[in-house]
């Protein structure tokens, strides 16, 4: 099954392109200290806004720092924000979705009302309020985004649980006397994971975009550290005179998010039974 899945995934062009893009980004983030040609924090006030050249492949920023190095280190921050935000929302959402779908009753009603509340709250406003309350720092941005995006997981998982709850193998497990949580985690969870993986992959892209939007609204991470989003947002001030400062991080965001979207959609195509019949 697993080998089959990988083979199918490789055959899916969307997933393949997405996977390659993501692999490049993840690798450069992991190898940041080796790849970055210079110290990303070293300022040279006599060499500000230098355009791309052999010496500085992406040019320098408003403090004369090497932009390429900053973009490479920015990958670390942006990916971190994405992964942890998605992790938080996934764990929270899957857990609540499982409870809600499996037990039903008042737990279901409470959780689903909560979902509706969070869903109708304008997402960016919620993020602004959370970050403002917690203070802007990478940790809090991740937490805030995590607290916002859990609802989709909860809904999807709940729907899948409802579908598999009455399957024979689950009923069988229950009649042999397995406890509720054993049934949930051993028998139900593995069977509802596929859509969650798709969502998480797509969610990574959304989280990276949201972080940049928060940066644009002045609630991103604290300088001198930089994510792609904060570099892009600050760089927009210099769009006319030194476009490279915003264009490079902007393109990194675009390609990375595109990669996550293509990969996520590819996984969905491969795992979706409806499209798999043929």
């Amino acid at each position, binding site marked *: 099954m697993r080998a089959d899945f990988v083979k199918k995934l490789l055959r899916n*062009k*969307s997933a393949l*392109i997405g996977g390659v893009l993501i692999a490049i980004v993840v690798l450069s983030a992991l190898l940041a200290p080796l790849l970055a040609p210079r110290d990303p924090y070293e300022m040279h006030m006599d060499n500000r806004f230098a355009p791309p050249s052999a010496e500085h492949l992406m040019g320098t920023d408003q403090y004369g720092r090497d932009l390429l190095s900053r973009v490479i280190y920015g990958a670390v921050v942006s990916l971190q924000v994405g992964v942890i935000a998605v992790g938080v929302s996934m764990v929270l959402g899957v857990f609540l979705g499982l409870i809600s779908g499996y037990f039903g009753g008042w737990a279901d009603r409470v959780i*689903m*009302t*909560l979902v*509706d*509340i969070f*869903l*109708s*709250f*304008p*997402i*960016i*406003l919620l993020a*602004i*309020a*959370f970050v*403002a*309350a917690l203070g802007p720092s990478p940790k809090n941005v991740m937490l805030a985004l995590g607290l916002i995006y859990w609802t989709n997981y909860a*809904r999807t998982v709940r*729907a899948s649980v*409802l579908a598999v709850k009455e399957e024979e193998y689950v009923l069988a497990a229950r009649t042999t006397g397995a406890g509720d949580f054993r049934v949930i985690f051993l028998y139900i969870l593995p069977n509802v994971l596929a859509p969650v993986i798709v969502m998480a992959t797509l969610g990574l*892209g959304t989280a990276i*975009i949201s972080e*940049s*939007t928060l940066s*644009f*609204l002045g609630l991103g991470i604290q300088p001198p550290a930089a994510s792609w*989003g904060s570099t*892009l*947002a600050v760089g*927009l001030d210099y*769009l*006319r005179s030194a476009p490279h400062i*915003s264009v490079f991080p*902007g393109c990194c*965001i*675009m*390609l990375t*998010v*595109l990669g996550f*979207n*293509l990969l996520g*959609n590819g996984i969905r195509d491969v795992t*979706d039974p*409806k*499209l798999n*019949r*043929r």
Partner: protein
Amino acid sequence: MRHYFFRRLLQIIPVVFGITALVFFIMRLIPGDPALVLLGTDATPEDLARMRETLGLNESLWTQFFSYIKNALTLDFGNSIFQKEAVMTILLRSFPATLELSVCAIIISLLIAVPLGVAAAVKRNTWIDYAGMTFAQLGTSMPVFWIGVLLIMYFSVHLGWLPSFGRGEPLTRGLGLLVTTGSPQVLLTGLKHILMPAFSLGVMGAALISRMIRSSMLEVLDSDYIRTARAKGTPEGKVVMKHAFRGALLPVVTTVGLQFGALLGNAIVTETVFSWPGIGRVVVTAISQRDFPLVQGGVILIALAFALINMGVDLLYAVINPKIRAGRERGAA
């Protein structure tokens, strides 16, 4: 049907109450209070204490909350602390602009998504499919504010075709004048102003909607009923447009509904970039000033609009497809 309608309406009540509680307490958790912002840095501690008392901020949180709820039930959302005006008045003034922007953004989403989705489904697994779907994804892959700034740079500053900021004229007023006087001038002014903001907002939705169209069309194209139609010798164009596209519409309606809600939230950023006089900017400014009543009222209004739109989508869904009336899953992708 009526029974279902009322049940859905009842479900909105706890949601709106929950939103009210959430926004009320979050705002008070955020450091900094309106008295401080209002009085500025010159204020003495005595001035501050007096202002907090005037604003009712020295009461206990619960007292404040319950009196807020009590007033809200009579549709009294208080006065804006900074603008010295009823919250309702401010919100009702700015909401139509946001609604107009969102509707136009949805239209643009559909204009992009429908041709892309249909073409991708019909030409499945060809380069048209891949290119189309990748192109659609590009829209969601760029931060809205970036798209917005680039658009202004190109179409306003470089080419000088479109105005760089503001709303110009409400489209409804333009339409009215077009009908009553036959003059398209005002409508055109409005359209010119809304084009870029609506586009930058709309491209986001296009990705999701076009994928939805593609996959639901694929499903329908594969069904027995289409095979029969083909076997009977119906021209392919008719098969696609008449049978497949119509069959695929149902999930699309749902997606558009959900997307609409997301737009209301995302409009905040677009409104900032394009100086659009909508509710999103009002609320963002209010948050940064800690204008509690205005933030609360604005969030409740946006949430209510979102809930009502979703309810409308559900009802529409139930009308089109009575079988799923009971279910609350909306089958979103």
